[in-house]
Each structure stands twice: as C-alpha cells, then as structure tokens.
C-alpha cells in the first residue's frame, strides 16, 4: 500500500462517491457514510503527508508506465500539504452539510457529487501531467456546477449560468494553452515539459502559452481583470457549498499557477511585470469591492479576490522568501475562507439573513459563539499572532527586497481594508442591536435545534477555528513547512528528478 | 420458447457476420451475447416473430426482386430530375389497407417509400388506410390498384 500511498485520498473519495450513489435514497445513511468517508480521507491524507514529510517526494506511476509515457502522480510537499488541507476542509464541510443542507438537495446526490468535487481537488493537486490536470479541473467544475445549481432558485440559477459560461471559457483557454504546449514539446508530463521547453527556440511562443495558462487559471482563481463573474456566483449556493468554493476552488487555480510558473516556465520579465500588475490590481479591486458590500457573504467574496492578489503578488516576485509567504498564505487562506462561509451559514441559521443591515445583536445574545467567530475574523485580518499575520512578513520582506514598492503598498492597502471592513462587520453584525425586521415564521432557527444539532452546527466552525489557531500559534511549524515547499518549488530539478527518475 | 430460440440464432448469425470470424468459439460467444440481449429485452413484444424460419429465406428472395424495383424507380426519378421540365402530377392518396399486423404495414410502407415516385406518409390511427404521396398520380384508382396488386399482394403472400 505504501507504494500507492499518495493516491489513496483519490481512491478513498472515488470509492465513497460510488458507494454513495448506490445508497441513493438513504439520506441519513449517506450523511454518516460521507462523514466517515471524509474522516477516512483525513486519516489517509495525514498518513500521506507524514510519509512524504519523512521520505521526500513520492511518485506513483499509474499503469506502471514510466514518466513521461503514462500519467504520474507526484506527491511533493506542496501537493500533500494541499491534500491535507482539502481533507481538513472537506471533513468540516461534510459535517456542516449533514446538518445544514436541505433534504431535497441531499436526495439528489449531493454527497456523491461532493466527494467527486473533493476527488477532483485532490487529483489536481497530485497529478504530474498537464492534460490530466485539465481533466481534474473538469470534474471539479462540473461538480461545482451541479452543487451550485441543484434546487436552484432564481439567484442560484443566475449565478450558475455565469459561473458555467466563465468556467467553460476558462477551460477552453486552458485547452488552447495545452494544445500550443503540446505542439511545441510533444509531451504532457510536466517535468518532461519543463526540460523540453527549455530547448524551444521561439521564446515568444513559450510566453504565449504561459499567458494562455495565466488567463485560463486566472479566471478560476479570480485575478483582475478576470474575476468579475465571481462575486455574483460564489455566494449563491448553500453555505456548505460556498465554503468549499471559497476555500478550495479559487485556490486550485492559484495552485495551478504556482505549479506551472515554478515548474514549467522559467522566470521571464514580461510575465513578471504582467503578474505583478495583475496582482496589485487584484488586491486593490478586491479590497475596494469589499468596502461597499452589505452582505457578509459578499464581503468575504471580495476578500477572496483581494487575498488571491497577495498570493499572486508573491508568486510574481519569484523568490524563495516570497514563495514561502505565498505557501503560508495559501495554507492560512484555505482554512480561513472555508470557515468564514460556514460561519455565514451559522449566522444565517440564527438570523435568516446575512445582510449586515438586517443583522445585529449577536454578541449580546450569543457571546461565546461570537467570540468563536471573532477568531477567524481576526485571523483573516492578520492580527498577530493569528494565522493571517505571519505570511505577510515574508511577503512584505520579499516585496522590499525586490524593490517592488507598489506591491508593498498594495499589501499594506489590502491588509488595512481587511482590517477596517472586518471591524465594521463586527460592529454591524455583532455589536449593533438587532434592527427590527420581520423574521419569517417558517424557518427552523438555531435556537430551536436540539443540543446535538446545535453542536453539529458549531463543531465544524470550532474545528476549523482550532486549525487556524494552530496555524497562528504554531507558525514555526507552518513556516518551516512553507520554506521547505518554497525551496522545492524554486529548485524544480528536485521535482523533475523525482518524476523522471534521473 | 421456440421463437426466442430462433431470434437467438438469428442474432448469433448477425454477430458472426459482423465479426467475420466463422468458428465455433465465436458462435458460442455470439449465442451467449444474443441470449443476454434477448433476456434483457424480454419485455419487448415480439409479435410475428413466430415466423422467423419462414420469413428469413423469403426476405432474401424478396430482396433481389426489390433491388430491381428500386433501380427502376431511380431511373424514373433521375429522368425527372435532370430534364428541365416537370412532367409529374403529384398528390396524396388514401390507400385502403389489407395488411393488418405491424410488421405487414411497416414493410409495405417502407417498400412503397423505396419505390418509384411514392412516399408513404402515414397510417391512419385505426390502421385502415395508408396515405401515400405519389409523384405520378395520373389516375387515382389506377395508382391504388397498382400498389395493391403489386407490393401489397406480393408482400402478404410472403408474410402469411
């Protein structure tokens, strides 16, 4: 089994999605099976993580075909870390789904599709083959289409149509890039591409393929000027779904950018300028967008964008310090963004709305819950020593060293906006008295739940908050991990040698 | 039971033709495969399948007769197509049917469609009339008689 250890998460998720399809009408059983499945996936992910942590990059050659002839799965530190984070987020969200998603949705294969989505995410992180990455992307997007649109009311359908069109378009651009790349190097294995692309004489064509990848992935990861569709789509589905979208879907785009731009493409001044500009604009635009929102889910949405800019900016700097910052931020962001949307769901369950103007009095009525939620909020802001703070040190430092003062300014700007908006959100939602609104009668409020149900609602939030606290206070471990990953990424021959067995 | 078996054999033969391997193993495989398919489809009504044995050889003989008719039909139409003027007098004619079963009606309609200047448009819901579009309906009664005496008669002779 240890030979295949890094792909066990894939096996587990595929197994459970099949199993769940067989349990089509047994919703209560599905809930349990899905939670068990995610728990198993978590255990397996930890196992794989520890294995790679101790033994270094591990490669599985599917079909026993050596690279570059077959599809390989590459468990380097970055991949297994992301797999682990996916498992953590997936575990929390599966529990949250079990309690929060309405029966009608569950009856139509929600959990099965959910596992397919997680399968896709894990596959995307692990694969060493660029076309295979496309295929994983597709299972991700089709699953997300289904999750966003099933049981669709007006808003969801509107969101889904745009979401579909843009993601399809992104996939087409990705495929175009892939076609160009294959036309140039005749191989699909990323490590092999990396070697062969260095021999391509026409660097303009290489740059073009890079730009196409950038745009294709950029649409998915919400970079300026490609993200405009996102705020209108991601907040429409149920919170459990939004949580996975927010936490992982945009990050898989960032992951792909990191992978492609560290492994395949060498540093290039044109691309650097392009990435930097896009990053700065993303931070700015996301931050500016967050200021004017009244719905907390949409506020979080714009922060996703804003903070993606942080990571892209770090990637653009292309130094080890910056990369460590990017990785740390990625780790922090996946957990925190997932949690924020679960919190949104929790607030909705309490108050039937996520509109700040209609919300209030949470602190007075739910002091402990409020304090619990304060931790992720302030982690998002990056109040030291919580998790969002640490990566900023690396990013700021790297932007200084690279003398990219605009990026530095953008980082400060983004952090400040986050601080102010979250403080405002806190004041509005938690401090302010509950304004007089008509609470719908036909709604099961949080207060009406049984103790066990309440616990199930709060547990995922508490669990992820705990992880966030660990990231903040155990920053030493995370930073060491991030530095190790950054070293691996910046010295891509480690990856290439592992894959091609050189 | 017997009809099932015959269908089974027939499908097996089609299989052998498709694969082009004429040996026992392939026969066996084809047989099992056909069996499975028939088993799956056992809900399908198979009216008229009892006559498989008789029908198969007759279809083969009818086939060659039909090719001839088809060629004739095409020549006629070809002439119509390439000559600059149209000599036709088309129209839709109601053709009373003697054919009763699904198979009979279907085959008749298909044959009519495939032959010169005629197109079977539809069968009345009570199966009493076949509506035929003809290119050369110079005389309605003659037109009807031609078909009834030609195709329908021949066909029913074969099928009954």
């Amino acid at each position, binding site marked *: 089994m240890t030979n295949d250890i890094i792909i066990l998460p894939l096996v587990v998720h595929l197994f459970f*999605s099949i199993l769940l*399809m067989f349990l089509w009408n047994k919703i209560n059983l599905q809930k349990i099976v899905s939670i068990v499945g995610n728990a198993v996936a978590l255990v397996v992910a930890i196992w794989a993580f520890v294995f790679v942590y101790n033994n270094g990059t591990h490669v599985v050659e599917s079909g026993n075909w050596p690279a570059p*002839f077959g*599809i390989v799965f590459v468990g380097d530190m970055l991949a297994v870390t992301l797999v682990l984070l996916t498992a953590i987020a997936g575990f929390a969200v599966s529990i949250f789904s079990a309690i929060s998603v309405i029966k*009608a949705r569950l009856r139509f294969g929600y959990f099965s*599709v959910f596992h*397919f989505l997680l*399968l*896709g995410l894990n*596959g995307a992180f692990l694969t060493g083959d660029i*076309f*295979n990455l496309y*295929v*994983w992307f597709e*299972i991700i997007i*089709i699953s997300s289409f*289904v999750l966003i649109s099933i*049981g669709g009311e007006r808003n969801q359908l509107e969101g889904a149509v745009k979401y579909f069109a*843009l993601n399809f*378009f992104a996939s087409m*651009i990705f495929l175009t890039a892939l076609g*160009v790349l294959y*036309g140039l*190097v*005749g191989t699909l294995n990323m490590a092999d591409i990396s070697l062969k692309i260095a021999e391509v*004489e*026409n660097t303009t*064509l290489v740059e*073009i393929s890079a730009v196409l990848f950038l*745009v294709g992935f950029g*649409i998915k990861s919400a970079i300026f*000027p*490609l993200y*405009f*569709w996102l705020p209108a789509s991601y907040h429409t589905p149920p919170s459990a779904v939004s949580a996975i979208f927010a936490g992982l879907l945009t990050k898989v785009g960032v992951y792909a950018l990191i992978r492609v731009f560290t492994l395949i493409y060498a540093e290039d001044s044109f691309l650097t300028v392009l990435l930097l500009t896009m990053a700065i604009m993303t931070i700015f*635009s996301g931050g*500016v*967008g967050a*200021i*004017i929102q009244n719905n907390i889910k949409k506020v979080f949405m714009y922060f996703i964008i804003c903070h993606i800019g942080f990571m892209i900016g770090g990637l653009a700097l292309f130094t080890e310090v910056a990369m460590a910052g990017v990785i740390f931020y990625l780790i922090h962001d996946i957990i925190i963004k997932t949690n924020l949307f679960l919190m949104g769901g929790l607030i909705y369950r309490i108050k039937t709305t996520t509109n700040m103007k209609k919300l209030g009095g949470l602190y*007075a009525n739910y002091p402990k819950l409020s*304090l619990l939620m304060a931790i992720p909020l302030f982690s998002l802001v990056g*109040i*030291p020593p919580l998790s969002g*703070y*640490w990566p900023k*040190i*690396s990013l700021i*430092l790297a932007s*200084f060293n690279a003398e990219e003062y605009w990026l530095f300014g953008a980082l*400060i700007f983004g952090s400040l906006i986050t*601080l102010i908006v979250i*403080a*405002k959100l806190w*004041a509005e939602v938690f401090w*302010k*008295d509950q304004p007089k609104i008509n609470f719908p009668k036909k709604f099961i409020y949080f207060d009406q739940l049984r103790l066990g149900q309440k616990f199930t609602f709060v547990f995922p939030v508490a669990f992820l908050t705990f992880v966030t606290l660990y990231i903040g206070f155990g*920053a*030493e471990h995370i*930073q060491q991990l991030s530095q190790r990953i950054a070293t691996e990424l910046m010295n891509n021959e480690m990856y290439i040698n592992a894959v091609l067995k050189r | 039971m017997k009809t099932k078996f015959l269908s089974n054999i027939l499908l097996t033969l089609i299989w052998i033709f498709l694969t082009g391997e004429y040996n026992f193993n392939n026969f066996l495989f084809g047989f099992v495969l056909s069996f499975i398919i028939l088993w799956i489809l056992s809900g399908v009504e198979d009216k008229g399948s009892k006559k498989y044995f008789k029908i198969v050889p007759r279809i083969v003989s009818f086939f060659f007769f039909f090719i001839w008719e088809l060629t004739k039909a095409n020549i006629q139409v070809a002439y119509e197509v390439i000559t600059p003027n149209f000599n036709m007098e088309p129209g839709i004619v109601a053709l009373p049917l003697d054919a009763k079963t699904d198979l009979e009606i279907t085959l008749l309609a298909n044959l009519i469609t495939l032959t010169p200047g005629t197109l079977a448009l539809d069968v009345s819901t009570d199966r009493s009339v076949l509506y035929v579009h003809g290119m050369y309906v110079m005389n309605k009664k003659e037109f009807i008689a031609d078909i009834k005496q030609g195709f329908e008669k021949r066909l029913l002779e074969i099928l009954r």
Partner: protein
Amino acid sequence: MLGAVLLGFLFSLFLVFAGSYFRGKLAVLSSLVPLSLFIYFLTFLPEIADGKVIYENYEWIPSFGVNLSFTLDGLALLFALMITGVGSLVFLYTSAYLKDHKYLDRFYGYLSMFMAAMLGLVLSDNIMSLFIFWELTSISSFYLIGFNNDKADSRKSALTALGITGIGGLLLLGGAVLLGEVAGTYRISEMVMMRDVITDSSHYLLILLLIFGAAFTKSAQFPFHFWLPGAMKAPTPVSTYLHSATMVKAGVYLLFRMTPILNGDEIWHTILIVVGAVTMVYSAIHIIFRTDLKGILAYSTISALGILVFLIGIGTQAALVAAAVFIVVHALYKASLFLITGIIDHETGTRDVTQLSGLRKVLLPVAIAGFIAALISGGVPPTLGFVGKDLIYEATLHFKDAAIFLTVLAILTKILLFYGGFVAGVKPFMGKLPQKFEKLHLPSPLMWMPPLIMTLAGIVFGIFPGLIETAFAKPIAMTQVIEFEEFHLKLWHGFNSVLGLSAITITLGAILYFTLKPKHNLENAIAKLDKIAPKDLTLKLSEGFAEFSRLWTNFFQTGYLRHYISTIVLFLILLLGYLIFSDFSLSIDYSSLTELTVYEISILLMLLMGVLYTVFTKSRLAAVAALGVVGLSFSLLFLFYSAPDLAMTQFSVDTLTVILFVLVLYKLPKYLKLSDTGVRIKHGVLSISFGILITLLILKVLNEPKNTEISEFYAENAYTLAHGKNIVNVILVDFRGIDTMIEISVLIVAALGVFGLLKLRLKTRDKK
C-alpha cells in the same frame, strides 16, 4: 517577564470565557492582578537603578526571527510600572464605577488583555513581537472603546480609532520588517549596534517614515489626532487608562526606543520637532474652546503627547530626561483628572463645565484630588509638575539656534495646559453649589481614593525628585543617550531664567483661568472650523473613497455576462497581440504541409458555411441543424486525417447534443434581436481579432519542430506491452486510463446534475 505578560492574557481569557459565572464578584479581586505585577516590577528597581539591563529570551518562531525577547531597562520599567500602577488604580476604580454592569467581567477581561499587551509592548526586545503586542493593544482598545456597543456613537469611535491605529500598525509592520532586514536582526538591543548601518542604508528614510507613521497615529499627533477625542466615548476607566496614561504613549515609547537606533540624521529631529510642536500648540489652543470636561482633557492629552514627541525630537539628554519625567507627570495628573471627571459625571450626570460648580461641598476628597492634579498640571511647586516643566524649558533653551522660538512655543502650550488643568480640576468645585447637586453623596472610596493617591504621589515625587532620577531618569538617559552626562533632578535650582519662565507661565495661566470662562458659544465658534479640520477632511476622504469604490466596483461588476467575457477576451487579445506582433515573422514551410484535395475543400466549405449559418441564422432550430452539419464535417475531417475513433465519437456526441437541444428547445423562447448594431460590431471586432490571433498562433507553432518521443514509444509498445492495436484506445484505457476514469466521472456528475436540476424542482412543486 514572560509570566508577567502571560498572566494578563490568561486572566483575560479566564474572564472572557468563564467570567459570566461570577457575575462581577471578582471585580475588586481583579485589581490584584495589576497590583501584584506592579509589586513584581518594583522589585527590579534596585537593579535597574544600578544601571543593569535584564534580558529574557524565549524561542517562538525562529524561522521568522520572531521570538519572545524581553528587556527590562529604565525605559521599560518606567512604562511597566506606569501600566501596572495606574492599572491597579483603574481596576479598583472600575469596580465601583461600573458596579452591577451586565458585562463587568467582560470589561475586566478586555482591560487585562490590554494591560498584558501593553506590558508586552514595552518589554519586547524583538521588534516583531513589539509589533504583535502593538496590534493587540489596538484590538483590545477597539473592544474597550466600543464597550457600549449598542450605541452607534461608540461603535463609530471604535472603528475610527481602529482604522487610524490600524494604518499605523501596518506601517510599523513595514518598518519593522525593513528595519530587521537592514539590521540583520529583529532584536532591538542588537539594532543599537547596527546604528550606522541603518542610518547609512538606502532604506533609512523609508524606515523613518514608516516608524513615524506608526508612532504618530498611535500617539495622536497632528494630523492623526482626531481619533482620540472620539475615543473618549468609552467608559471613563478606558479613557483614563488607555487614552491618557498608557496606550497613547506607545507611540512615544516607540520613538524613545528608536532614538538610539534611528536618531542619526537631521531629518529625525526636524520631523519630530515640527510635528510635536504643531500638535502641542494646535491642541492646546483647542482647550480654550471646549466645555465638555472630557473634551478639555482629550485636547490637553494630545498637547502633552505633542510635547513628548517634541522633546524626543530635540533629542538632547536634557530633552529626553524631561520627556521621561513628563511622562510620569502626565500619567499622574491626567489619569487623576480623568477619574475625577468620571466621578463628577457619575454623580451629577453631566460633564458640561459651564453647569458645574461648588461640588467641593459634597465631594470634598475629590475636590482635593482635583486641586492637586491641577497644580501638577500647571507645574506649580512643589509638585513633580514643576520639575517636569522646568526640565522642558531647560531642554528648549539649549536647543541650538531655534531655542527662543521653541521655548516660546513651549511656554504658550504650558500656559494653555495650566488653564485646562484648572478648568477641569478646580472649576467644578469652586463657587456656588447649584440646588440640583445638593443631595449628592460622596461615592465609594474605591472611586475617589485612586485619584487622590496619584495626586499625592505627584507631590511626594515633587518634593523628592531623586526617586524619579535614580529609578528612571538616569537609567533611561544611560541607555537612550549616546554620550551620557551626569545630572541631578532638583525641585529648586535657584534663581535662573528657567525659574523666570516658570513664573511667567504660572502667572499667565492663572490670569487666563480667571478671565476666560468656558462658554458654549466658543465651542460653537470652533465647530465652524471643523470643516477644514483633519477629522472632517478624513471623513470626506473616506466618503469619497467609498464613492470611488462604488464606482470602480460597479464599473466592472456590471452583472452582464457579456461584459465579463468581453473584458477577458480583450485582455487576451491585448496580450496575445502584443506577443505575436512583437516579433512578427510568418515564414511557412509549404513543403511540410499536407496537400489540399477537392473533397477536403468541399468538406471544409461545408464546415465553414455550417459555422457561419449557425451564427447568423434567425431560427434556433436551423442553428441546431447547422450544428449537425458542422459535426458531420468535423467527423469526416477527422476521418480523412487518420482519426477514425475521433470521427465516430465526434459524430455520435454531436448528434446526441443535437437531440438534447431538440428535446428542450421548444421550451425556450424564439430568438429576439437583443443587441443593437453598435454592440454587434464591437463584439464582431473583438471575436474576429481573437480568431485572427489564434490562426496566426497556430501557423507559428506549426513552424516549430515537434518532439515525437512519446508517440513513438506508444507505437512501439502498444501491442507488445499493452496488448492493444488501436493505439488511441490503448492510450485511453491504459496509458492514460486515469483521464478516462475521471472523464466518465464527469459524465456521471453531469447526469446527476441534469437529474437533480429537473427533478428537484418538480418535487418541491408537487409539495405545494
């Protein structure tokens, strides 16, 4: 020292989570926490007085160089004692002031968290951990200012304060990171050795500006001062503790700390002196126009902070000693005055100084404390205030060429501060007691004892300034000044020019107090000036920014899918166009191309026409049928070019898609002409440009050689190793089987989606 810092945090956690079980019973007991810390720090006095510096270091996040390093030197001890000392009294005072308040425990929780953060800040030897504690003071003060969170005013003030100090915090982060980078260490004590490296570095100015930004926002220097009067909305203990004694001095502390590291250039002095001077004079003048006691105190606090910055800017030993002493002076009198104001407010229900008089008759001990506080504030001997004021004049008088000018500014400020101190500390108690206040009773000693203790301490220290000298002044001077000179603090220096200036100050201050009475019309007069005051400007700026944000966001977030896509397409066109035309050469090797035949041309023609027909037809059904033609042409094309599997698949899939279309199409409306011609042309140009770029791109790539290593491997091994002869199929089920496995999963999910999309609604509708 780690324990000292952690104690506050742990206590805070305990109160926040478990406090509600005690319902305020722990209030008085809570004061034991700061008190014991105060005593703990007192025990270090002898060592520090001996000139020792105590270091402690705990590894935390060595990867970042962020460690819990603590230093206890004169400066740190001064602040630590002030924090814990004033803290003890404030804690005590609070127990009475907020007695029976619903959230008293929570309040203590925030308060001790703040105290711990503040302690951590002043004890940190690591600039990153200093920053961490710095931010924690901002956050805990956010909660403290917004403690009465049901009031919109409180929330707004808390947000403003957090916003301004938040900016400062981020600047500090930048400065700290940069400083650490330049110095090669985050330890402040080590940075001192790197002074020359830092001041010579090209980043020096940037560092300086960042650090100043942090300090000025935190210590409410002009033009960032406006958050402070607003923050006074907080309950009195908060105003006392944070906004006079401790937090606002964090900026001053930072400048103090940085003096031996960054004080190497004229610019350091210039900026600090100018900003400090403007702040102290500007806000001192403001005092005259205030009638709210807290308003008076707020502006006098800002002025005092200005004085401190101003002194640090002067930077001579005398000035630094003056600053150190003045920190103590200010803490003693200002904290007392705040507490006194709190008592008055608590008892009379008003802070309007025009309404208050004669309160000495009912609140005698408070009146005594008020009187002494006013004396300290006014620098009247024998209080420590007098010592402090003299030291200030001493410092200004000896500052190079601008001595006279600076001294005049200092005197002006001091006169106004004298006035402010008396208005706040004396005026409410003098004159006739209004009838409505006759029934007032002296509140609990827990409230009036703390100011009394502090003011008395002001007299004791005034009479024995040696205490201050040995405990703080000398140790601070020794660590913060490069060339230390021996000095002594005295109450009486004999007759000299400084004494003369003191006399002038006190006389003019007294005259001002007796002639100028606080009036509402004065307050209204200055309100008109608010429009150009930094506060309103900032407000307008932030409103403008919000408006800009709205415009910016709505400009891009139109909600129209086609805008989003056309933006992306345009972006791609620009990038690809730039790259393709940047080295435009299109030489095609015609010999490498395949020959063109009649039948291919007809197929391609059909394909082309089919595509165009699909685009331009006005009938949806015809478009779908045309799609069928396109699919057919495609599969023939694939067949001609050696891809039979593709031909089959393309055709079956296309037909199935057409069927799907056909099945749902009649549920959809007919085509309408929705876009006008201009839009069509715009989109046409966009799409055609993109198409042209793609064509050019293809031709360029086709010119490059291609590596065929992988396909050769498949050709050789498909049968021998993978037992298949149709290599495409072998790739699909074996070499790249994973792709296929996921591909069919995609189909499954799509089918589940279709199923759910159509059936789920049916079911819910059925329920209705």
